[in-house]
């Protein structure tokens, strides 16, 4: 037992040091491409840290969103940036240490560390409260209960944030990402093999979220990963689906959330207060629609501009 504890402490120290080192390297690496790769590695180690902190739901979200999709977004942006400004080197100049910000930052870090170290070692928190009311929430996974029942309005507003970000990207963005060369046979085969599997994994994560780590956000991001893989392999949304059907899918998640909020406000008297008997079914319905919307929104964020622009000037060349 003592050996195990010792091993775990050693692992914690190693992981903490690796996180700090990777973050430092990712932020100061002269080559931007390397910096992004290091950042993705940092995200994966963060997922390990979440597991060590007994937060498997956060670990799943971090691995899929924080490391995977953020990395894909950064890479796509870097590719476009290099195509746009080919002569600009990626600020490869070595920065000298700037003493004034460094001193200020050391002061901030020392102050924050002092606060962390002087906090009382125990704080009640809301864990007991959640455990007491878990029975009436309709699900067995406490994180899902908090996300979709107890603090459902947070999640409602989060869906709106996601949609607003996409609206911003669509209003600002140029034409969406496109690749000149046809994908190689490896990428093509891989996409064909992995996409159905990823969709299956998304469905499983959605279903399992009711009683074990998983849920709408994790499932949605895995769905988005499948879409990103297909987009990279040259697949494009059929033209017929890019106008109204796409927009309807995007707003379905926030839409059903708002509908439920209004419904519960009228029937139960409180925003998002589900009747305990139907709570499980309502949450599953909500999560299923939200998963689809989250997946499509994240994939659209990766694509950049509105897919209609792409299809218009390409005359359906890439349709298959």
């Amino acid at each position, binding site marked *: 037992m003592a050996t195990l504890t010792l091993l775990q402490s050693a692992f914690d120290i190693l992981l903490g040091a690796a996180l700090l080192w990777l973050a430092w390297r990712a932020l100061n690496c002269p080559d931007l491409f390397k910096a992004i790769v290091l950042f993705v590695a940092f995200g994966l180690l963060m997922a390990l840290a979440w597991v060590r902190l007994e937060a498997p739901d956060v670990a799943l979200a971090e691995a899929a969103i924080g490391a995977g999709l953020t990395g894909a977004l950064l890479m796509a942006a870097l590719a476009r940036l290099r195509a746009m400004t080919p002569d*600009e080197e990626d600020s490869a100049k070595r920065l000298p240490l700037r003493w004034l910000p460094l001193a200020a*930052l050391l002061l901030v870090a020392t102050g924050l560390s002092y606060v962390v170290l002087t906090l009382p070692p125990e704080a009640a928190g809301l864990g007991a409260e959640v*455990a007491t009311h878990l029975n009436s929430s309709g699900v067995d996974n406490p994180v899902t209960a908090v996300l979709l029942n107890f603090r459902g309005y947070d999640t409602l507003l989060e869906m709106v944030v996601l949609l607003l970000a996409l609206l911003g990207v669509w209003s600002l963005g140029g034409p969406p990402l496109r690749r000149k060369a046809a994908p190689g046979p490896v990428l093509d085969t891989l996409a064909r093999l992995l996409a159905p599997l990823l969709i299956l994994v998304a469905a499983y994560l959605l279903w399992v979220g009711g009683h074990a780590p998983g849920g709408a956000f994790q499932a949605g991001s895995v769905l988005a990963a499948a879409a990103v893989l297909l987009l990279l392999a040259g697949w494009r949304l059929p033209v017929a689906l890019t106008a109204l059907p796409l927009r309807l899918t995007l707003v379905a998640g926030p839409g059903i959330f708002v509908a439920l909020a209004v419904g519960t406000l009228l029937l139960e008297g409180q925003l998002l207060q589900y009747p305990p008997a139907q709570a499980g079914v309502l949450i599953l319905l909500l999560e299923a629609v939200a998963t689809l919307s989250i997946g499509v929104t994240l994939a659209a964020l990766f694509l950049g501009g509105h897919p209609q622009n792409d299809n218009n000037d390409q005359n359906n060349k890439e349709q298959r």
Partner: protein
Amino acid sequence: MNTAVPYALVGVGLFALGFYALIVHAHLLRKILALNVMGSGVFLLLVALARRSGVALPDVVPQAMVITGIVVAISATALALTLMLRLAAASGRAELPDGRED
């Protein structure tokens, strides 16, 4: 005590590293990376401190908040990257003027 305090301190360290990089780097892609690292630091601090609940199970409310935060972070990152690309298209460079002559 357990693992809460060491991970909280790593979170503080990540926040400080990210903040320093946010100040000193001129390239906007690096500033976006720095903001993401700062965010990870805050998330780590939140979840690590949630382990001080004294009972066997950690407090799940901060964990749910962090999942929300991760999704908001990727939304903000996507929007920031698009703004950066627009700036690069308009001005030819993805950097903020440094303010110094060098």
